[in-house]
Structure formats: C-alpha cells, structure tokens
C-alpha cells in the first residue's frame, strides 16, 4: 500500500481566508481523490484530481470554491477558498493503488482537520 501524508494535519482559520492542503504519496499513482467529512457525518467525494488536466468535480462542488492542482503523479493540493464556518471539516485525500486499473483498492491519507471561526 502507498504511504500518504497530508499537510497541515490541522488548522484554525478565520472566515474569508483560504487554506491550501497538500497530499504527498511515496509512489506514483494513477488517480487521486479529495473527500470532505463534516462533523459527525460520512465522507463525501469532492473531486478527482487528474494529472495534467483539470480536476473533475462532483455535484455540489465547484472549482472556484475548491481549486485543485495535480502537477505530477505523487502530489496534489486542495484549496478551500473564502472559508466560512460551514467549511469546518476533515479533508482527506485518497489514492488509487497501482497498477493502473479501474477497480483498485483505495488508501487514505491521515486527513486535515479544519476549523473556521
């Protein structure tokens, strides 16, 4: 399984500001995903981070609010823009394990716990 790290592990931010979360994998992976987990809730997929092209967003999530970068096969960032208290959540990245395929097991990073005041 891949070793996945996220930075920061937690942060407290003021409303109206933006935070960029980093996800680093120790090996090249085909697909990277970003999820949100609101307090006491399950996980919801935000978007698929595509290497070399724009991210693919799920219904209810837009690029202006959650811009994503994927500059290479081991790294991605998620920015939470113009934050409000409703953005307080755990944000997790996950990766699709090699070899490249459609139905591979996914592994998750440790998450970033965000609190917006």
């Amino acid at each position, binding site marked *: *399984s891949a070793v996945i790290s996220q930075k920061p592990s937690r942060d407290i931010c003021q409303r109206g500001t933006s935070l960029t979360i980093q996800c680093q994998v120790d090996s090249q992976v085909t*697909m990277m*995903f970003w999820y949100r*987990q609101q307090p006491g809730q*399950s*996980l*919801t*997929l935000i978007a*698929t981070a595509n290497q070399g092209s724009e991210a693919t967003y799920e219904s209810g999530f837009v690029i202006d609010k959650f811009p994503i970068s994927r500059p290479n096969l081991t790294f991605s960032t998620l920015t939470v823009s113009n934050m409000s208290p409703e953005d307080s959540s*755990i944000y*997790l990245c*996950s990766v*699709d394990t090699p070899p490249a395929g*459609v*139905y*591979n*097991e*996914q*592994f*998750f990073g*440790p*998450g970033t*716990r965000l609190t917006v005041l």
Partner: protein
Amino acid sequence: GIQVEQSPPDLILQEGANSTLRCNFSDSVNNLQWFHQNPWGQLINLFYIPSGTKQNGRLSATTVATERYSLLYISSSQTTDSGVYFCAPTPKAAGNKLTFGGGTRVLVKP
C-alpha cells in the same frame, strides 16, 4: 446515484462479544471496501471485497454482489475496535469512485 445504507447506526458491545454490521447498496458495484475510522480520524483499510468472503484475524467480511449487500463480522471484540465502520462500494457507472455509507458507530466497553 447509488444509495448505501449501513445498519445498525450505533452499536454498544461488551468486550468479548461478537457482532455483525450490514451494508446494503442499491445498484451494481465494481468493488466494495470496508474501513475503520479510529478516534483520531484515520481511515484504516479493513477489506477490499467485491465478492466472496475474506478473513483477517478477528474480522471477516462477506459480499453478495448479486443481492447487493455486504456483512462485516467482528468476533471477540476489544476496546480498540471502537470507532466508526464505513462500507464504500464503487458503483459500476462511477469508475473507481467510492460512495460511503453513513457508518456504524461502535463502542466496545471493557
């Protein structure tokens, strides 16, 4: 989209007890994963089980894809089993995107 329902939503066990968690899903799936989220928020992979039965120590899982359900068995529960258990199937129409159920919150008392 696919509906994923987990039951029960909450479960309190005495240490040493056995339990069964259920996951029903409404559509055909390519695969299914079970996760344990510990109190620190880390998601731990338990099983990758699109069909059939697998065992790992005190845990085992069975997926009957044709009947659209999966079961997670915990035997001889320990306090470290506490946390939230999620099932996450991948709908056939969604490539490798996981859809999470609502979770079962388990508390194992000593």
